[in-house]
Every structure is written in C-alpha cells, then in structure tokens.
C-alpha cells in the first residue's frame, strides 16, 4: 500500500505538465515548420523571379551589340566595334550568372543553346572585323566580304531573337510552377497540420481524461460514501483504494475521510453503550429505593420488640436488640460509603457481641490492635463480611475450641497497616483455594454474591494500588485473610 501511494505522488501535476508540453511543443514545431517552409519557398520564388530581369538585360545587351555593329559597318568607326565586343562580353556574363541560378534542366539546355549562339555571334563579329580590315587595305572589291559576313551576324542575331519568346515563356512557367507547387504543398501542409492537431488533440484529451478521472473518481466515491453514512451504513462507507491513478491530495482526503468514518462509528457505539448503562443504573436505583422500605419496618419491629423486652425486664434481650439495630443502621447508613477505621471496628465489636451471644463458648473471638493505630478512612463494612465468612465457612461446623482472631498491626515507618482475620476452622484444599482466589480477583459489580470478592473490589477501588489482599488456607488447619493498606500520614489521626 505504501509503495502504491508513492507512485501516485504529484500525479495531477505530472499530467498537467505533460498536457502543457504537448500543447507548447506542437505549437512550436508547427511554427518552426511553417517558418522554414515558407522561407525556403519564398527564397526559391524570389530567385526564380530574379532570373527574368537578367534574361531581359541579356537581350537588350545583344540589341546594343547589333546596333553598335551596324554603326561600325556603316560609319567604319573602330570604337563602335570595340563597344560591340565589350557589350557582348557583358551579355555573356549576364548569361553565365543566369546559368548559375537556374536549376531546371530544360532551361539549362536553353541557356546552353543561347551561350553557343552568343559565342558564334562573337566569332562572326570577328569575321566582319577582319573583312572590314581587308576592305580598308584592299579597297572597294573587298566590301562584298563585309556584307556577306555581316549577313551571317544578322542571321545569328535572328536565331537568338527567335529564342526570346519560348525562353521567356519557360522562365515564367518555371516561376509559375514554383508558385503552383507552393500552393499545392501548402494544402498538403494544412492536411498535415490537421492530422498533427488531431493526434496531439487525442493525446491532450487523454491527459484531460486522466486528470478528470483522478479527481472526479475519488470525489464520486466520497459522495457515495457520504450517502451511505447518512443512511447509517458504516460498513459500505469505507472507501477502498483500488485505483492506482489517483492524485496524492485525493488520496490524503480519502484516508482522512476513512479515519473520520471509523471514529464516528466508534463514538456512536460508545453513545449506545452509555444509554444502556444509564438505563441499568436507573433500574438499580429503583430497586434500591424499594429495598429501603423494608428496613424501616424492620427497625420499628425491633424497637417494638425492645419495648416488650423492657416490660418483661429481659435485659439481655434489650442489649441484643439494640446492638442488632445498630448494626442494621450502620449497614444501611454507610453502605457504599467510607468510614473511619475506628467506627468500623466499633461496629465489628457490636457484631462480634451478637455472634458471641449466639455461639457462646463454642467460638472465641480475639480482637488485637496496636497502640497509636492510625484512624484511616476505609470503605464501610469491610471487616464484618470477612468475620462472617470465617464463622460460616470456617469455624461454623466446629463444636468446641473454635477461635477467630482479628489482628491489626501497624508499621509506622512504611506507613502501612495490616489486618489479619484468622480462623482455625476446616480450611480449604489447594484447588478450592485457587478457585476462591480466582473468583475474588475476577469479581465485578454485576456478581450476585457478596463476600471476599466484594471486599476485594471495594478495597481496590478505594485504595487502588496501595492495597494488598491475600487468602491463605490449609485443609484442617484454618484460613487466614490478610489485608495490607498503605496510607498517607498527614491525613490520618490516631485511634484513641
């Protein structure tokens, strides 16, 4: 799980970056492409266009050559001939520059033809010049040579001129062709643009879909989950992270949401439990109130019996009745409360007195307490149930020499008191003792029995870790319950 979460880090950011690079990259590529393409074609078109003026210049130069030659033959001026030759040379240069810039094979062929004819023209002009020189030296008869040779110049000139129309047409066609190709290719280019746009559009769309999916998917799950919670269904509300293409932030949100759902579920369960406990508590209070009715009747009865005893002069009965009433009152008044140890012992003595009257010499009760014993607070009715236990389970079956010793010792240094309730009754087997101890320690308020466990629990609740309670027993030898309580000195006064 942890590994999977790692790969989702910055998911949306990455996808957005990808998307952005695609858009910008496509745009940049297209721009470069368009610029290069139109640049190259512009250059081609321009260079083709430049050929026509050069071509025309060549023809005007050739015209000048012929008119200079005309002048030379008519006026017999050498300077005209020199001018004609010079002009012809520039015309040849024009032709050469044209040849360098032309790529088309047929135009090159045409240019070669023109070059050939220009060379022949030049040679023929030299022939005319020679004829003129001969004419100058030999006189009139040689003039026929001049006219003959000059006719040839004119013939070549006509041939050159005949080339003008088809050649200029070829050049224009070439320019037109470049233009046409450019137009045709630009349509193709637009097609390519559209295809590229479609491809990158599909890629971009997939990115957007990814991003959308990584956000709206979890949100939909959250909404679904919230609806489940609204209907109280916490089981279906937990979002499972099966998708591995969700955003990191979304993952966090879902995790928080899941934790929230679980806590809400826990709180609602606690609330339910509280309500249940509250109801139980109310029920038990009601029972308690009901139970308080009986003691009042009992006290009235006891008082009434005491009155009768007084009338009958039965002193012993009066004392017994008074002691009994005191015990009942104590247990009624202090049940669930704390008392001073001195008061607890006083009430224990009342109890012992009654039991002494009951068992007579069969049981001997011994209460020993060290001097300056601290009068600490303890939960009420701790000692009495233990003594009662000793009577019922310990010495109750013995017919003579039964003894119950209650010993209270005090360790001033360690601020500890220890209470020992010892009987010499029949005791317990090892297994029974273990069972009893186990029952004592696992005692809860729900248990119906009152006894060792109840005492142990109340002591634990009151003194927490400062109390120690142990039971020791041996079959045929008796049982000892030992309680050790640590106390805080400042709070305690001593028992008189």
């Amino acid at each position, binding site marked *: 799980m942890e590994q999977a979460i790692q790969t989702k880090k910055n998911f949306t950011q990455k996808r957005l*970056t*990808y998307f952005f*690079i*695609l858009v910008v*990259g*496509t745009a940049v*590529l*297209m721009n*470069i*492409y368009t610029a*290069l*393409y139109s640049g*190259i074609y512009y250059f081609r078109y321009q260079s083709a266009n430049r050929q026509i003026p050069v071509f025309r210049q060549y023809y005007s130069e050739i015209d000048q050559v012929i008119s200079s030659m005309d002048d030379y033959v008519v006026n017999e001026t050498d300077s005209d001939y020199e001018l004609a030759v010079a002009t012809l040379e520039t015309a040849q240069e024009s032709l050469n520059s044209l040849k360098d810039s032309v*790529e*088309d*094979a*047929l135009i*090159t*062929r*045409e240019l*070669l*033809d023109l070059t*050939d*004819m220009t060379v*022949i023209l030049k040679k023929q002009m030299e022939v005319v010049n020679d004829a003129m020189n001969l004419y100058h030296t030999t006189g009139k008869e040689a003039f026929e040579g001049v006219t003959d040779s000059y006719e040839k110049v004119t*013939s*070549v000139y*006509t*041939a050159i001129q*005949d080339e003008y129309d*088809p050649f200029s047409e070829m050049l224009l066609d070439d320019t037109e062709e470049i233009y046409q190709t450019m137009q045709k*290719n630009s349509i*193709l*280019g637009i097609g*390519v643009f559209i295809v*590229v746009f479609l*491809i*990158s559009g599909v*890629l971009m769309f997939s990115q957007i879909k990814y991003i959308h999916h990584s956000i709206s998917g979890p949100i939909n799950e959250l909404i679904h989950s919230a609806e489940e919670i609204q209907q109280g269904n916490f089981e279906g509300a937990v979002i499972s992270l099966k998708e591995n293409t969700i955003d990191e932030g979304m993952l966090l949100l879902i995790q928080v949401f899941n934790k929230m759902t679980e806590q809400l579920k826990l709180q609602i369960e606690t609330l339910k439990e509280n309500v249940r406990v509250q109801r139980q508590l109310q029920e038990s209070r009601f029972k308690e109130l009901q139970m308080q009715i009986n003691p009042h009747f009992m006290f009235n009865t006891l008082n009434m019996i005491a009155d009768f005893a007084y009338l009958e002069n039965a002193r012993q009965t009066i004392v017994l009745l008074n002691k009994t009433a005191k015990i009942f009152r104590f247990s009624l008044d202090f049940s669930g409360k704390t008392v001073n140890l001195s008061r607890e012992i006083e009430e224990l003595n009342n109890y012992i007195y009654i039991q002494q009257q009951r068992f007579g010499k069969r049981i001997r009760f011994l209460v020993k307490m060290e001097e300056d014993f601290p009068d600490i607070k303890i939960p009420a009715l701790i000692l009495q149930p233990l003594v009662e236990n000793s009577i019922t389970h310990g010495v109750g079956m013995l017919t003579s020499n039964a003894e119950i010793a209650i010993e209270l010792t005090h360790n001033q240094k360690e601020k500890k008191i220890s209470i020992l309730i010892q009987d010499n009754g029949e005791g317990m087997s090892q297994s029974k003792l273990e069972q009893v101890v186990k029952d004592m320690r696992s005692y809860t308020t729900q248990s119906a029995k009152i006894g060792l466990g109840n005492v142990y629990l109340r002591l634990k609740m009151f003194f927490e870790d400062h109390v120690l309670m142990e039971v020791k027993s041996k079959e045929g030898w008796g049982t000892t319950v030992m309680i050790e309580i640590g106390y805080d000195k400042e709070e305690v006064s001593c028992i008189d």
Partner: protein
Amino acid sequence: MKHIMISMGILSFAFTVTFLYLIYEKEEPFREDAKKYICIATEGMYYWNAIHEGIQAADEEMGSYTKWVEFERFDIDEQIRKLKQTQYLDLDGVITVGEPYSDELNQTIQDIVERGIPVALIDTDSKESNRNYYIGTDNHQAGYLAAQEIAKATDYDADVMMIVSKLTHANQNERYEGFVDGLAEYEEMNLVSVIEAEGDKLTMQEQLMEAFLEFPSVEAIFCAESSSTRRLGPFLQQLKKEDLTIIGFDNADTTLEFIKDDFYLGTIAQSSYDIGYEAVACLNRYQEGSKSQEVYTDVTCITKENVDNFLPLRKQSK
C-alpha cells in the same frame, strides 16, 4: 516524462519527414553528357500535342533533351529558317516534318545530315532529303483501312467520295492510293470523286456542293485529313445530309463527338504518341550505330464501340 519524450519524438519525426518531402526537389539537374535534340514541328492540334508528349516520355526514359520548336502549318519558309538556325547550336539530332515537293526543305535537311547530325522525319516522309529516319503513319494502310470499314458498312455496294487536302501532298497521296487499293477489292465499290479542300473551309464546301449535285448517288465519304474531318460534320448538318457513311481522320474532340452521336461511322486514328516516342528512340539508336530506318506506326479505326476508350484519354492528355 518518458511518454512526453516519446510523443514529442514522434511528432518531431512526422514534421521532419513531411517537411523534407515538401521541400524535396523532384527535378533532376541538367546532365552535361545528355544528348540534345531539337524537334521543329507544327503547332497546336491534338495530333501534334500527342507527338510532343511521346517525345517528352522518350526523353525522360532515355535521358535525352529534346527542344520543341513550333512553326505555323504549311509555312515551309519558316520551317527552313528554323532548320538553318540549328547550325548555331550544339545538337545531336533533329526531328522535323518532311515535304517531298519542297526542294529547298530537302536541301536544308540534307545540309544538316551532311554536317553529321542525324535527321528524323515525322508525319510526312521525304526520301529526297537523305534523312536518316522516317517515323509516321503507314498512310497507305490508313487509306486501305478506311476503304474496308466503308465497304463493310455499305454492304460492299456504294458510290464513295474522298476528301483530301491536296493530292500532291505525299501523305494525302499515299492515303488516296491505299483507299483506292482497298476499294478495288470489291466490284460494286466505286470512288466517284476526290475533293481537294486545300485546308480551306470554303474550298471544301464549294467543291462538296458541286460533287453532291454531280453525284447524287454518293452514300459514303472518306475524309483523309484532320481539319476537313472537323468541318465536314457541321456543313453536312446544314445541308441536312446526315444519312451518309463517313470515315474521318484523326481523333479531334468534335470528330469523336460525331462518332458518339452516330453521325460519323468512325475515324482513322494515328498513333501520334508513338510517333514522337519512336523519333527520339531512333535518334538515340543513331548514337549506337543504326544509321537509317523507317518506322511505321499503327493506325486504328475508332468507331462507336470503342470511342469511349479515346474520350477519357483525350482529357488526360490535356
């Protein structure tokens, strides 16, 4: 990141390929060692355009350059002038149209041949010029084929008329002879009149009117020349003479339309593309040692059955 690199790589590659494709120059540069020819021929008309195309195709295939120079039809003086101008050029061969009755043209051609430059005559031959090659329609066969077609269509029994430009033109004469030979095979087929239209519309119309008056029995006409073939149809429509069996010459648009409309029976088509192609091929063969040759290209008769095959071909060539 890997995805981005791959996508951008593919896009860049596509762009580069397209760019290079669009920028790539299909033209080949001029080859210095290539043979240079010149073709001095008549301008216009489908027949000559097809010859030009044949020449261009042969050039492309065999790596030669043939310059196309036009002169007006029947202007022999201009043709001679253009031919004479070739002396100023560095050439490996000349293609032109022959005319056996023009001594000056024959002389000019002979001059070129004597300079060591091979000459190929197309369309019309002229043996007197000492030309190296002749490439053209077998005109005798063309006339013969027309006679066969007409005989078939008229149940081998009809009076027939023939239109030529001028019987003194060698190709016209050959077609005439072929036609006569073809008709001679059938006893009932008679050639009653030969009209010399001289390439002129009015001349043709006048003579045709006279011929119809003189020979009302005429059932079929063989028009052995391209321009008269085109003019004949509309004129016959004017005369309301649309029940004649007509075989024309060359496959001009209007001629083909007449065939389609069942007005003309057919037309004799020359393989002009082949003529052009073969002319260049002959000149190339000269370089390899073949010094003289006559090449006759096939003629076919276009009828209603196969006229559709020629109509789209016409449009392509335009």
